[in-house]
């Protein structure tokens, strides 16, 4: 589960631009800091001090030193300003590319709803907490929020962008290297702000197309008897009030779409790995793992639970 | 060790008017605070207007009659206010009491008209953002009218009870604050009543 989540391991053009800007700022400010510290230490421990602390000549020389130091800092700040504005302009540069992919990301209290848009209704894909993108192609994320302010931030790919209820924001990301990049909500949004992560899985175009194709298919019929019984348990449990599985009667829109749950790497917005054990723990005691989450504690155990787990694993 | 160059201040007066007094500077600071409060409310009005295609959103603009009447009364009240200030700074007790009473009449008048103004707004505070900001703008100014009215009433009572020189300074400062309350109504009046047409 330890996927990269750092600003210094840039895997996309936007993040790379910012990383080089960071190192420019870092070295300039470190140099200034060291110089100021040296000046302060020398000033404090120097030996041969002027007899009259207020002698005008020394004061004038000090005035010249202050003026020149200020001049130098002005020039340095100007350099940093220009480089910052140039790097900033680069981050909106992706708009020109018409072949970009449109994804609508809706942030809700404590998970991310991801929808791959398409003019043909059957081509649309709805998944949660994971964004698959092809390597090398710019991706336009349309950001919305249905409740409070969240902030989408995948440090390896780009900066963060707030999702404000009542407004839609456009946000560009692009990955140049394959890999799984972890991101997290960066604007305080309530009880489970700490466990609201998402994964951006960058893969080559072939794998991405195969993944998209598989996500478009409805849920496969359960192969064996136990999985079939699991589906019946699912359709008669509280799950149907909120979740949806295309191909079955469950059509709830207020919670993640579970049609391809088994294909996801994590559960509960990047909090726990997607293994049967964790899935069982999450179903029976969601509040234990994420106290305050909207998933209620479901009273399923024993035989029903095993059947349900078996069924959920078939949802590849 | 009293030396010859000591500064003898025993002859100085023990009260003064205008920007020589402490109270004048405190009132100016208060005016800056109240001015910022009004300015921020007006900026909020303009900001909210910017987010709406139609303003006021499916409501009719506020009726102009009572607002304009009230503005006239307030501007007119500047005359007795100035006279009160003149007599106060001449320390003439009788005329100061008289003209301060006249100011109180004007204050009572525009407070009554203000109640009618609320009716002419054609919206409640909880209808939408427009209603909220318009009610807040009008209510903020009304709070200032009320506090100014209560100040003047208390001052008038004090002029009858124990009129010392310091009280005349207070009357003169109260007149200055009265100007602020009346003049700060002008931009709010323009925004509330002519905002729908101008913005």
């Amino acid at each position, binding site marked *: 589960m330890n996927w990269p989540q750092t600003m210094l391991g840039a895997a996309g053009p936007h993040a790379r631009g*910012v990383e080089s800007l960071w190192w420019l700022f870092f070295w300039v*400010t470190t140099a200034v800091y060291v110089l100021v510290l040296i000046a302060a230490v020398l000033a404090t421990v120097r030996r041969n001090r002027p007899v009259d602390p207020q002698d005008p000549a020394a004061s004038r020389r000090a005035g010249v030193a202050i003026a020149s130091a200020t001049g130098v800092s002005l020039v340095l700040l100007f350099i940093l300003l220009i480089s910052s*504005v140039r790097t900033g302009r680069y981050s909106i540069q992706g708009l020109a590319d018409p072949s970009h992919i449109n994804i609508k990301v809706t942030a809700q209290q404590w998970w991310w709803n991801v929808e791959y848009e398409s003019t043909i209704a059957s081509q649309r894909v709805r998944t949660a907490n994971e964004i698959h993108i092809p390597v090398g192609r710019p991706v336009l994320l349309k950001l919305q929020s249905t409740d409070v302010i969240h902030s989408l931030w995948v440090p390896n790919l780009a900066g963060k962008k707030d999702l404000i209820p009542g407004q839609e924001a456009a946000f560009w990301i692009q990955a140049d290297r394959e890999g799984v990049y972890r991101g997290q909500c960066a604007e305080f949004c309530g009880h489970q702000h*700490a466990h609201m992560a998402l994964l951006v899985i960058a893969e080559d175009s072939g794998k991405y197309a195969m993944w998209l194709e598989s996500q478009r298919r409805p849920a496969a019929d359960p192969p064996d008897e136990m999985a079939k019984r699991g589906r019946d348990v699912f359709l008669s449990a509280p799950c149907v009030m909120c979740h949806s599985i295309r191909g079955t009667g469950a059509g709830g829109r207020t919670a993640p779409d579970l049609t391809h749950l088994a294909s996801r790497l994590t559960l509960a917005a990047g909090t726990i790995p997607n293994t049967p054990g964790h899935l069982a723990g999450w179903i029976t005691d969601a509040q234990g793992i994420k106290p305050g989450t909207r998933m209620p504690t479901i009273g399923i155990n024993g035989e029903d639970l095993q059947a349900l787990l078996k069924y959920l694993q078939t949802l590849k | 060790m009293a030396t010859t160059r000591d500064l003898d201040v025993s002859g100085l007066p023990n009260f003064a008017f205008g920007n*020589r007094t402490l109270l004048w500077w405190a009132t100016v600071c208060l005016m*800056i605070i109240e001015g910022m409060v009004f300015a921020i409310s007006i900026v909020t009005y303009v*900001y909210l207007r910017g987010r709406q295609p139609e303003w006021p959103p499916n409501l009719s603009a506020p009726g102009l009659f009572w607002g304009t009447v009230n503005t006239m009364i307030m501007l007119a009240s500047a005359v007795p206010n100035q006279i009160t200030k003149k007599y106060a700074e001449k320390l003439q007790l009788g005329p100061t009491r008289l003209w301060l009473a006249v100011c109180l009449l004007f204050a009572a008048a525009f407070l009554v008209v203000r109640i009618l103004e609320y009716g002419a707004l054609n919206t409640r*505070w909880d209808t939408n953002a427009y209603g*909220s900001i318009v009610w807040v703008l009008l209510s903020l100014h009304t709070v200032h009218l009320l506090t100014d009215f209560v100040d003047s009433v208390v001052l008038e009572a004090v002029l009858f009870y124990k009129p010392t020189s310091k009280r005349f300074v207070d009357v003169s400062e109260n007149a200055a604050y009265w100007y602020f309350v009346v003049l700060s109504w002008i931009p709010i009046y323009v925004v509330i009543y002519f905002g729908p047409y101008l913005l």
Partner: protein
Amino acid sequence: MPADAASPAAIYDDRAVLEETWRPPAGLMGVLSAVNHKLVARRFVVTTMVFFLLGGLLALLMRWQLRRPENTFIGPDLYNQLFTMHGSTMMFLFAVPIMQALGLYVVPLMIGTRNIALPRLNAFGYWVFLVGGVFLYVSFLLNMGPDAGWFNYVPLSGPEFSPGHRIDTWAQLVNFTEIAALVGGIELIVTIFKLRAPGMSLNRLPLFCWAQLITSFMVIFAMPAVMMASNFLALDRLVATHFFNPAEGGDAILWQHLFWFFGHPEVYIIFIPALGIVSSIVETFTRRPVVGYTAMVLSLVSTGFIGFGLWVHHMFATPIPQMGQSFFTAASMMIAIPSGVQIFCWIATIWLGRPQWKTPFLFVLGFIAIFVLGGLTGVMLASVPLDLQVHDTFFVVAHFHYVLIGGAVFPLMGGLHYWFPKMTGRMLHETLGRWTFTLLFIGFNVTFFPMHLLGIHGMPRRVYTYVPDTGWGPMNALATAGAMIIGFSVLLFLVNAAWALRRGALAGHNPWGAATLEWATSSPPPAYNFHPLPVVEGRSPLWDRSADAPSVIGIRSDCREVLVTRVLDAEPDHKVEMPAPSIWPFVSAMCLGGMFVATLFTPWGFVVGAVVATIPVIIWFWPKESDHAGRAYRHDRSNERAA
């Protein structure tokens, strides 16, 4: 003024009579009705330090929860209250008020007058502040503490997503502390403009007073923004207005604009008085006036102005047009220049002067070391692309602790060590002071430097825990250890203060050999501060005081008379009588507090409360015998007549 004709001849310049006229009343009534600026200010400093300790305890609890991943020491609900209370306490109940309280104590002494300009208003300001602080902590203990962050973004803090009255507590706290700050601001401006000793023209005003003056003007211009924002939020939550309801024309970003238009000047309101303290300490402990007086004053003024022009750098991640953001990048970088000039001037002063290694001076060196680093990370945050990476992460937490603890708490600790002898008459223990500094310096850096790395490696702010696989565990454990060290150093300071109050060495008039006027009085100063009032001849009154230095005579001792001087050249203008101690500011503050708390539960609480709160204010203003103190009034009580 008493009727001169009937009463016996006025008594001028008599120390014994002065002593009697200015003596504060004893007993509980004396405490509740005190108007002497030193009594009120000392109480203010102690109260804000208590809130500092409470805020520190909250911080330790937070650090203890974060010391390892998926810790269950504190749940999310309590943790959200903890970090909101920590932020609100430190910003509203400690940082801004303590700088003003220090100003209320030192400024009247430094400019050579007998009391603050509007003493009863000063008492009222303290009581309103106290009611606000007690109200916040009682609510917190009743599980009603705010839990949406110290800046309380809507719609999370709106009526739909914050049920109950937790956020209303925050909104009312803001009202309390704003009134106290505004009132303090007004007093300091009027005092510095009108009550300076003759001869102290504006270009001889000490830098500490310049800092307090500019801070007070920033308070007056900035605070209304948050007052309106918190009242808009309270209206939205209690009477269903729609300022922040996107469906009915409101907007969530309106809150951010209103709050941060106040928010950024607020951090300069905390920081600029600290610059004043550093200037005072550097001047005294290098035995030389600060180099470039005009440059320092202009830097303070320009920091104050530019401070109002960069609030949008808190909102770079919101969908605000890119072009607008670059303007704020430029403004945010430009403000580094005045601070830089001041640092260079102090270093030049140390270079030319003869530094003494006393505790206050150590805190100034600590300030330079830490604040400069914080200022430079601030330049990084000014750049939009960099800020989009590290905004709302632990990098920002590290930045603002470097500029707030480094930039304000270090100078404040230096200031407390510097003025402690003047306030209490006792010297703090030198070695204990040095240990306090060393522990604080080490503890601070161990706690907050790793947070820069945490922020770069993706740890967001305000998280009650984190997943183990992120690898943030070790650095968080290190930060928690550092927080413990900070706790020890604050404890050490308390021990030092407690010890010094009883057995500290007796501090004479001027233990540090300083230059400013407050060191001309005894420690602690008498109730009337100066007898006779000094006449100022230069920027360092005590250092270049000639043998036959003139002083002011002809001020009455048998009533609380104070000399009012002109704004620019401080020429004597007229005399004013200061009001005597009165209980009514206390009663007014309690009624106002009752009104604000009642508004929490019913909108009618505001209307009824306003009427109830007006009564004590009118009585406070109503002329009464008890308004005047001093022997002049005891004779002609019977035949009071028009002047």
